[in-house]
């Protein structure tokens, strides 16, 4: 359940769309949004990218909403913080509590930061929700990112999902034995869980290495690119 985003990335209308175009579009749009730092442009890009994600990639509104909620919650908190505790200059609003005031400057910071993040989030979403990681890594490789880094990332991506399944099983087992009953038992259970995962991961890495070796692995994983 945790990795809905990975599932969505593999199952939407834009999955097969050229990943290079998607990656470049994302990077250029992000840079433009940051460089312009214009409130109207932020809103414009938010609307456009949301339409692309919802209407063209046909990602359900619920998933998109879920993608936005957690960063948005953080964003609201931090911007309230910026609004009340930062800045100097002209006071434009007095709360009357502990001398906390909103100044010209802090208002400017809060609004611009809020809008900037608002504009950037859907751009990240566009890449994250429509492009599977393996394709992104494939693009990065042709952009001269060192081969070894891509290889490690690809292997990691494989192993992550095996781990998550194991953790799920173990946590259910611990839970059914009241493993997360109190603070201290939660700590102990979590410690046991993590160290077991670590020990298992060592075994797994050995198996992985053997299986790679037995298939003639020389430090490169050739990928088949199906013709469109």
């Amino acid at each position, binding site marked *: 359940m945790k990795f809905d985003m990975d599932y969505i990335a593999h199952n939407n209308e834009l999955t097969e769309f050229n990943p290079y175009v998607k990656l470049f579009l994302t*990077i250029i749009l992000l840079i433009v949004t940051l460089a312009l730092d214009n409130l109207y442009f932020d809103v414009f890009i938010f609307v456009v990218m949301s339409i692309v994600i919802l209407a063209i990639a046909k990602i359900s509104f619920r998933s998109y909403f879920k993608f936005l909620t957690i*960063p948005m919650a953080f964003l609201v908190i*931090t911007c309230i913080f910026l609004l009340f505790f930062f800045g100097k200059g002209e006071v434009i609003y007095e709360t009357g509590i502990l001398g906390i005031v909103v100044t010209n400057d802090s208002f400017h910071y809060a609004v611009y930061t809020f809008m*900037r993040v608002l504009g950037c989030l859907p751009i990240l*979403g566009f890449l994250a929700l429509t492009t599977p990681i393996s394709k992104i890594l494939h693009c990065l490789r042709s952009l001269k990112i060192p081969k070894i880094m891509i290889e490690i990332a690809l292997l*990691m991506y494989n192993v*992550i999902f095996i781990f998550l399944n194991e953790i799920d099983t173990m946590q259910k087992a611990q839970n059914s034995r009241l493993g997360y009953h109190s603070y201290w038992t939660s700590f102990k259970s979590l410690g*046991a869980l*993590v160290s077991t*995962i670590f020990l298992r991961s060592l075994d797994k890495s050995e198996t992985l290495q053997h299986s790679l070796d037995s298939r003639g692995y020389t430090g490169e994983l050739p990928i088949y690119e199906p013709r469109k």
Partner: protein
Amino acid sequence: MHIMEGYLPLNWCIIWFVISFIVVAFGLYQIKKIVDETPESKALLAVSGAFMFVLSSLKLPSVTGSCSHPCGNGLGAALFGPAVTAVLATIVLLFQAILLAHGGLTTLGANIFSMGIVGPLAAWLVYKGLTKANISSTIAIFFAAFLGDLLTYVATSFQLALAFPAPSFGSALTKFLVIFAVTQVPLAIGEGLLTVIIWDRLKAYKPKLLDKLGALAPNEA
């Protein structure tokens, strides 16, 4: 806490990217050397990276009620050294941005700097220093994880204060530090305790491996 996508202005994004790039390039060079010597270690590195990623999806029971996750960079640094941890953290942060919408692409450089470079480096220095001083590795790993976590937040506060220097850099830094101290000190203690439990079990089950990685205190090896 990861800095969100779009939170930093463009100039700071670029500066942190450049700084992180240098360190990560050095880490890559080190990894290349390790892999050339022992080709088997590539799988180990990949699995350790996956371990770091998975750690961050576990919830840590915290005293303040806010739920957060362990970063595992203290443990990583004590086991593999800071340069290798920086590269693994880079990949982990990229995955977090794309798979979990945690952090972001433009702020990747800044996040690498705080979580992949400052935290692990501090943890590693503390760990090496304490074990050299003949303190048992269990106590050393607690302080390594605790301080590694804490300095990550100090670094994040620095980055935020530099980006929002209002009314001045100093006062902004103090404000960010105070806010982080309230929420993150209990978390750092939590991560320290968790790392100790993990470390104890590792010592009990795989002492040879820890010895091989050169991660044990001299008097315990």
